[in-house]
């Protein structure tokens, strides 16, 4: 009798132990499956992001949040260093930007974006700049009486973005940054701002082509020699991300210019016409490529203007232009 009871007891113990193991296995499987699905969704969102950028490159000038929709809210971090720039989705899926130069905030928690693609052309096409913003982000462009005409005519951000133009004399009434998600205030005024505001703040001195990023009481100054770079500063989240993307833009400029220099040398060999001498422009382009790689903005600006003039002169003589 005792042995029969023992047999039943052993049976139950076995069933319990086996049941616990099976349950543990299933629980582990469920957790792993959920983790895998999250990774899969992150990858899908990352690919949707990449597809949207390709759509911009292929011809669309602007994408609003309906067209640039990742399908679900994800965390996106934009990373940039000297070697490469990439975005990271949900701390898992990363993808390089390639030769796209993207100006945006560093971190997002969103499902959609507003985007604008702008050609960087300094007499020749260099690359495309993509400007990205959260659909709920508001840009306040503050002007005063001396800059009003310039700002309202030339600082024209596309309608896909939330942009408000504010007269500095009425700033207290018109600047409604409370309850706004990560607003950015861009002062394009005679003098630098002295207001203490709970927002991203920057100052643009259009006369001297100077930028000032105001972050946590510190001021980071930089120059810009191109309107496209100025817009890049407007859309950048902070000075360091703008600076990194600007460096990448100069690296791209260096590569494109070196290709034009090589084209000039090829044209010199192919076109046998005494009035079509490409050696001078080739030399200038090689120097420009070198200065672009060294990030010497002043020399880049000077040489850039010079090569554009040289190119026009070649065209004026009836020769094939380099660009």
């Amino acid at each position: 009798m005792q042995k029969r009871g023992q047999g039943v007891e052993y049976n139950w113990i076995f069933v319990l132990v086996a049941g616990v193991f099976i349950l543990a296995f299933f629980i582990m499987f469920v957790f792993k499956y959920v983790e895998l699905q999250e990774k899969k969704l992150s990858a899908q969102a990352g690919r949707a992001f990449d597809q949207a950028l390709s759509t911009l490159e292929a011809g669309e000038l602007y994408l609003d949040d309906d067209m640039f929709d990742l399908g679900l809210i994800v965390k996106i971090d934009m990373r940039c260093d000297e070697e490469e720039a990439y975005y990271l989705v949900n701390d898992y899926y990363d993808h390089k930007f390639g030769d796209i130069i993207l100006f945006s905030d560093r971190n997002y928690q969103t499902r959609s974006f507003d985007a604008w693609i702008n050609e960087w052309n300094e007499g020749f096409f260099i690359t495309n700049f993509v400007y990205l913003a959260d659909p709920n982000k508001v840009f306040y462009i503050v002007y005063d009486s001396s800059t009003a005409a310039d700002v309202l005519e030339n600082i024209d951000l596309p309608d896909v973005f939330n942009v408000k133009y504010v007269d500095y004399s009425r700033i207290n009434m018109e600047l409604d940054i409370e309850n706004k998600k990560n607003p950015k205030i861009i002062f394009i005024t005679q003098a630098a701002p002295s207001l203490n505001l709970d927002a991203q703040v920057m100052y643009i001195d259009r006369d001297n082509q100077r930028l000032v990023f105001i972050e946590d009481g510190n001021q980071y100054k930089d120059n810009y020699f191109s309107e496209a770079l100025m817009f890049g500063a407007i859309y950048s989240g902070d000075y360091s991300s703008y600076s990194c993307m600007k460096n990448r833009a100069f690296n791209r400029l260096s590569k494109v210019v070196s290709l034009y220099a090589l084209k000039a040398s090829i044209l010199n060999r192919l076109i046998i016409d005494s009035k079509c001498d490409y050696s001078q422009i080739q030399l200038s382009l090689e120097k420009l490529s070198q200065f672009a790689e060294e990030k010497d903005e002043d020399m880049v600006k000077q040489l850039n203007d010079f090569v554009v003039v040289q190119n026009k002169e070649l065209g004026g003589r009836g020769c094939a232009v380099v660009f």
Partner: protein
Amino acid sequence: MILLLFRIKNWGAGAVLLSFKKGQLETQQTIMVVFIVVLLILLGLILFYRYLLADIDNQNKDYERDKFNNLMYTFSLSPEVVCSNYGVSDVLCLDSAKMLAFNALSLEDRYYKQQYGYRNITVRLLYPYENSRICSVNSVECGVWILYENIPESYDYMKIVRKTPVSVYINDKDQYGIGEMVIEGYI
């Protein structure tokens, strides 16, 4: 009486022995059933896991294919090859001198290998003349430009080929022609 008692005792012992063996048998049966059920579940899970992996792999291949198809259009717009006149780009037109320059740079610069990966990009002139001679910086009469060449060492990759018509500006003749751009990809 004693015999009866003995028989009863034996019968009791036998009954206990019998029920003990029956308990063992039942336990063994339970073990077998649980074991087979677990095996079936494991098999089901393995098949499901392999299905998931295959699904992810297919999605990845679809994405690579879409990216490759995008390249057909975006490559012809890149500043490295697009025709331009005083800084204004000409869509879907490829500059012959730039193509030669790009080929030279893509061989030296790791940047382009990182950009384009395993691809072959060739342009063949069809009009106003066809010429199978490969263009180089020294050749004048030619009709094939090899822009970029990077073939993987291992052939486990799947090869995709896409072709598109393009306009070609022939610098030394100052004339436009029609050509075909062929992009081979390895995914």
